[in-house]
């Protein structure tokens, strides 16, 4: 990536003079030259920033630890909207051309978009050759601060599994929402950690989700519904008009919601369907609830009761002893995701 140093410096100079009034006493060309020098330094430094573990080995620049951390942090800093856009488009070499569009849309400089895009692509490519947990590799090879590494882990997880975030209905959701969801899944759901693809869910886990089918069977769904609604009524307790409206709504929609949740769990098994996870969550769970004016708190209570009361159906326990464990694992995470996306 080549920068037109002189042109950039000129812009930078104006910015510095604007921000720092004391520098106005200095002759302009001196400020300008200083900036140019810094650009030269950056030009040399950039190749090392691209692989920070090398930055510590190089001898061109003497960098103290605090500066080192700062440099890395700044270079890997990203704009939420830009990353959101990059993930909505498919991450590929061809996309470099689309960066212009992204820049237009987000009002971020093309160069900055390109850096963010290249950073992401480079991290993915480097990690492709490495075994082990994503997070560990990112901190080791890119020396990112922990918080940032965590976010990158999620972003890469989203990118690798090619979750479709480009649907119009998802467009109001920010990258932070998805990062949160991704991290919930990475933390709570078992990952495969095989050499080929360490961001896949463990095959065993996905297969085990089949056990959840009992809950959508006719004989159990009514029992479950009754238990859940009772539970909700108990929690809400004061019978205001609003609460009763909520109960009525849930009663009407329980069957659809429950089936949708189980379908979503099923779909994780098929990679093609899994890509639509967020879309499905939105379309089949969140949207109906929003339409019925269910507020966030009520949704939380519903999801909580939905999960807890499933344990109460003794017949399922008999049919499948592992059901409770698997159901909890699925529901806790997916509930967190739904709640995060619910706005």
């Amino acid at each position, binding site marked *: 990536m080549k920068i037109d140093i002189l042109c950039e410096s000129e812009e930078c100079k104006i910015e510095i003079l604007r921000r720092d009034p004391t520098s106005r006493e200095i*002759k302009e060309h001196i400020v300008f030259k200083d900036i140019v020098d810094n650009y*030269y330094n950056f030009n040399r430094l950039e190749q090392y920033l691209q692989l920070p573990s090398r930055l510590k080995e190089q001898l061109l*620049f003497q960098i103290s630890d605090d500066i080192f951390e700062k440099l890395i942090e700044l270079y890997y800093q990203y704009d939420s909207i830009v990353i959101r856009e990059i993930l909505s488009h498919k991450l590929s070499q061809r996309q470099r051309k689309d960066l212009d569009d992204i820049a237009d849309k987000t009002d971020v400089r093309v160069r900055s978009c390109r850096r963010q895009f290249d950073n992401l692509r480079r991290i993915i490519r480097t990690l492709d050759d490495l075994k082990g947990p994503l997070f560990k590799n990112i901190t080791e090879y890119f020396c990112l601060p922990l918080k940032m590494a965590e976010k990158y882990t999620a972003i890469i997880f989203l990118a690798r599994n090619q979750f479709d975030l480009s649907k119009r209905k998802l467009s109001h959701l920010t990258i932070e929402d998805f990062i949160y969801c991704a991290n919930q899944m990475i933390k709570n759901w078992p990952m495969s950690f095989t050499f080929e693809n360490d961001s896949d869910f463990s095959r065993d886990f996905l297969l085990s989700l089949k056990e959840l089918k009992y809950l959508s069977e006719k004989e159990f769904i009514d029992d479950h519904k009754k238990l859940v609604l009772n539970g909700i009524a108990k929690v809400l307790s004061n019978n205001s008009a609003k609460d009763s409206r909520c109960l009525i709504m849930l009663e009407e929609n329980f069957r659809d919601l429950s089936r949708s949740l189980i379908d979503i769990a099923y779909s994780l098994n098929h990679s093609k369907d899994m890509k639509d996870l967020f879309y499905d969550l939105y379309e089949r769970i969140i949207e109906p609830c929003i339409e019925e004016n269910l507020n966030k708190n009520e949704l939380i209570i519903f999801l909580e009761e939905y999960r807890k009361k499933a344990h109460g159906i003794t017949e399922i326990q008999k049919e499948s002893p592992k059901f409770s464990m698997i159901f909890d694992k699925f529901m806790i995470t997916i509930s967190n995701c739904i709640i995060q996306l619910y706005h």
Partner: protein
Amino acid sequence: MPGKIKIGILNARNLPIMDRSSESSDAFVEVRFGNENYDKTHVYKKSLNPEWNSKFVFEVEEDEIQEEPLQIRVLDHDTYSSHDAIGKVYIDLKPLLSQNGPNLLNGFFPIYDTLHGIRGEIKIQAKIEIINDCNEYRKSSSGVQFFASSKVPEGYSLQNFCGFVEEMVLNDDPEYQWIDKIRAPRTSNEARQKLFTKLSGEVQRRIGLKVLDMDANCVLGYQQYFDLEGEYGIVVRGIGTAAFINRNINILSNGNNYCTSPQFIQPSRPFPDLNSKPSKISPNRIIKKNHSDSDIISHYQINSAQFNQHSHHQQQKQETQANFSLLDKMEYPFFTLQQYPVGFIKSLCGIVCSRSVKLLGATNDLDELESRDKWWIEIRNEIRSHMKSLNCHAVLGYTETKSICEDVCVLSASGTAAIVNEAFFANSNLISNDSNLSKKCSICHVPYSDTDLPFPIALSNCSICGQAQVPDIIFTSIQPTSEIETIGKGSLLKAIVARPRKKCSGEISAKMISDYLPFLEYELHRQLLGKLKLKGMNMLYGLRIQISIGENVLVGIAEATACYAAALPSPIIPKIINENKSKRETKEIESLKKVLVEEMTKNVEFFGLAQDLKILPSNINSIQSENDSNDSRALFKIELDDYREKENIFLLMDSVGRKRSNFYLCSTEFMPGIQFDTNLQMFTSVYRCEASLVQINTKKFNEIFDDILESLSYKFRKYDNCVLANLSFDSSLYDDDHAMIIVTGSCLTYNEKHKDNKIKNNVEVTNLSYVPNATIENYLGLINLFLIRESTQIKENGGLSGFMHCFITEVLAMARAHVISLGGNALLSFKMTECMLLDNPHRNQGQCLINVSGDAVRIVKNFN
């Protein structure tokens, strides 16, 4: 004597992609030493981080190790066509020969290519096993340590100074005009790098032999220069001070593998030799050095013998007698050091300087080298006679420089004439009990009586003791010494003179330059003196005058650190004289006077010269008029008869040094009146401009310098209390109408609130000979790198300034790698002795040639 080099080529990292299709490289390494030793590793396929783990053993001669660099070449294997070079590494193995240096070289070295710069790193180990050669007729001089630092190295004690050593080698330059030649520049540049490295090794080996002849064991203040004489070839010159030093045993050595101190209780190699066969100080060698007088030889022998037989106490009396003559008869009593042990200097007289203009290639009858040798001998003799006429017997802070333009060159030598303590020429243990030391002024006293002046000079009584006489100002080329009491802080003083000259060549050109030179020097001196007075100061340290010649301009730059020595009389404000006084002019003079007084007052305040300095213009005027007739030289007067002169007055005031409070400049390693806390950073700033700019006038040139200083001040804006120390300005003029100015210096802080005693950088590179608040544990060897960088894509890489920026960073990276491989963590007395930039804008090409040197050391921070 034969020795063995053991080399390990372990692995490499970050290699460039040489094969586009596989995005990797098939690298292997060629190892070469001298002409006969060659070997290579296997090919490590498809990797950018190959591992070879190959070991090689070469059998070599000792003198070969001194001259030849170890050459490592990394290549990309290609089955069908020729292998592509990735880059090279030259490693100087000399540091491994030194007795208390490291015994193993181990580290990652940047792989360097003249066209592409640094391309990855390679891990190399090297070790030497050698049987020492004690033969009198040996060619090698291993074991002689070279120090770039111009002082007695820390952790060593001086036994005695042995004298001035110099050597010169001449060779054809493989390809000096790269742009127009057919051969690929890359090949010729590689050939040059190799040759220059080898030549510098040869110079050191030869100097080493001379040093051993003098019964010394090291060279202090070693200076090495490359004179690129174009079609006449290349001359590598080295000068230094031979001395015998002992390692202090009680130094806090952490017992690392480098240290071989026990051996040093006994004087090392040269001495055992001497004891057993005293007659072996072969007369012919000394005769070669002293053409004159055979008496010296006997003296010389007696002295050395005494040294070995008697205890120190007995020696003292006998030696002082004998040694006086020794110093006196030393062919050239010149010392390249700039800092001396306490008690060494007895009296400082002033600058002695000699220049000569020579025509290259005009000496067909003589051997080229011999004729150049003669030139320098002439100059040295002149310096010696200057020194004698000042009643002195030594020259301190001695340097020799050369400026070349086509076939004309100007040779210059300068130093500070002084009287020194002869005791240092025999035995150092008697330094401390000198009674004179208590006085802080004796050094300033003139060594002659007022009836026997070498030239008209104003003397007055010493302001401290009032007993002896002192001159009104002293100029020196040495570093500030604690033995002279100063008041207030020091300041950078620079003088610049640019004189246009007619374009001509050959003898006419030489004649013209030599005609101009005295005027140039006079003008420089006038400026220095005027500025010094206006600063309210009276002493100069570290004065360096540099003359550079271009095709149509002649430039002289002088820089020094000015300060106020308590012993010398207070400076008097310059007087403005005007012969034909009209009313308007009188008025003008009055206003000018006012400006001068204001300037001086400001300076006095800023530099804290304070109290006893009175600026009373009216008083001074009256005094001046009295003195005017009889003792005019003591005063500095400005005759105002035309406009130019008026402008000159303003030139004398430089306000740049006062721009920021708590921000000072000086040209020496130490700043009078300031104690440094931390070394922040060394900087090198290269400034290039059209020579026509320089030609216009001195004023314009001055502005460029002020601009550079200002931008440096801007760069260090973050720091409150800082000093830019050891500033030096180098200018070179190119025939294609360009002038280049290189400014180097170190930024240091003082009065820091939070002292940070950690070593921040993995390798501290500084042009100082010390690191503030740190102790040097061990000197690991002299680093001397010669590198050439070329580019055919100047525009794409940010123009010439981008190219230079990048190259200098790379040079530093390589220097650091060498220091690390020797187990060091700092490079002291770093100096860029040569920096030559050529370009061809039409072809988008550029080439730069850099030589750097310095002392690799291991330092530890002080914790109190």
